[in-house]
């Protein structure tokens, strides 16, 4: 029984993202959240300590609860429904937290980025780009509006794939394409625990400004095709050539 409907896929194709609420079971979310909380330098029972706390990337990759978020829930299967059964390399999302800033002057971000681009500190080798098919942003606790939600610019995946038909993948420093693309209004993704945003690997995105009270407890992952190394520089006429689940 598929998890995604034809409407879901059509929405993803047009907008480059799709949000499915309550996709990850509550017990899996809770276990993952508990693992993260054990690594934070703030007091779970005292929200006043959340402001500008850390770390943003707690080390819980080896905790079984982390793996379960992606692989013992329907998340990976949904991604396969987009790209093709058996086509994705198994991988799972890890925590990318955003902490309350203590500020109240909220606005949508003006600039986003494409993932996989080199900066001096992010581990991506200079002169390379890490390409993947499907991004995952999984909320293991509720993320309310203005609470640092994952923010996307719908439709920019189409602009990006068109752009790279005639330009090098390396042509954006740090993945910043905001000045090149016609940027629509951004969408801040919110939702209860268990919500998942699936996003196209070349969709402009960023983390929103956090003016809320709760820690944005997102698990973010990137799923690549098994044959990604052989095709990532290809720019076919039909941008959905390597997406078996998208008509």
């Amino acid at each position, binding site marked *: 029984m598929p998890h995604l409907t034809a409407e879901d896929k059509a929405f993803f194709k047009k907008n480059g993202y799709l949000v499915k609420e309550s996709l990850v079971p509550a017990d899996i979310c809770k276990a993952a959240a508990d693992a993260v909380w054990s690594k934070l330098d703030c007091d779970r029972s005292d929200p006043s300590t959340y402001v500008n706390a850390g770390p943003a990337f707690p080390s819980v990759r080896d905790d079984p609860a982390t793996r379960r978020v992606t692989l013992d829930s329907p998340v990976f299967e949904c991604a396969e429904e987009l790209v093709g059964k058996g086509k994705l390399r198994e991988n799972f999302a890890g925590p990318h937290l955003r902490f309350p800033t203590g500020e109240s002057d909220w606005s949508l971000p003006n600039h986003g980025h494409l993932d996989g681009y080199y900066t001096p500190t992010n581990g991506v080798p200079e002169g390379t780009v890490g390409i993947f098919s499907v991004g995952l942003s999984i909320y293991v606790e509720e993320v309310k509006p203005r609470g640092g939600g994952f923010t996307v610019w719908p439709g920019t995946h189409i602009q990006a794939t068109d752009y790279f*038909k005639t330009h090098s993948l390396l042509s954006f420093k740090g993945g910043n394409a905001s000045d090149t693309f016609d940027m629509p209004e951004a969408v801040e993704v919110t939702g209860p625990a268990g919500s998942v945003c699936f996003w196209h690997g070349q969709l402009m995105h960023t983390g929103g400004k956090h003016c809320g009270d709760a820690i944005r407890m997102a698990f973010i992952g990137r799923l690549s095709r098994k044959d990604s190394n052989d095709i990532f520089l290809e720019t076919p006429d039909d941008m959905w050539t390597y997406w078996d689940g998208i008509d």
Partner: protein
Amino acid sequence: MHLTFSPTLCPDLRLKETLDLASQAGFDRIELFRTWSESSPVHNDISPRMARDQFDQAGIVLTSLNIRNLTGRKRDSDERKLDYNIRQLEWDIRLARTLRLRQVNLKGGERTDEAAEDLVEGLKNLLETFPDMTFNLGNHLGNRVQGLDDYRAVLPNVGDRVRVLLDTGHLLTAGEDVMKVADAFAGRIGVVHLRDQKGETPVPFGEGDLPFKDLFDLLKESGFDGSLVVELEQVTWAEPLEAAKAARGFVEGLLA
């Protein structure tokens, strides 16, 4: 043996213009550089697919790509970081494969023991990752592989798919005996970069110190069937087309 055009003659021209120049000069093969020249297939305004289309439209075959050096170091912080450097080279090699290549040219790092270790280790790693690729290891003055002794130190430690990129110009600049190096590795030469020089100064083919005829005879005897890449670096002649034609004519005359 087949003649191949090099963008060293026209580093400021984009790929399409470079291909036009190569075609007008009578070449049907070309070699490219990932860095250094405007004809690079990673120029901002070109995609690999466009590059392939431009090769096809010009009727020119890409024979190899000069990728980044295997230095074992992270350039922006100058740390020793072989795995990082390997990932850069893997990216370049995948680009080369997208451009239909099954061989690339590369050089080593600095003249240190550390760079020598990383060169051998890195080549082994690449051979394993890309079982259908050939790697032409180039010599360059000041590079980890500068001449005969350096090749002798590296080649026995890596697989046969690591070949010699015999760069005559850099051998002459380093004061190395071109024929001695060619003779030592006659059966393992993958590609030859032809540049004639008087001392360290590039000159028109036939006017410098490169023993063209002896070299070609040796290559013929060894069964070499790779590219003779015509490098006309730092040419100041007003007409690059005429320079390319003259160099091609000179080499073809000797090969006839």
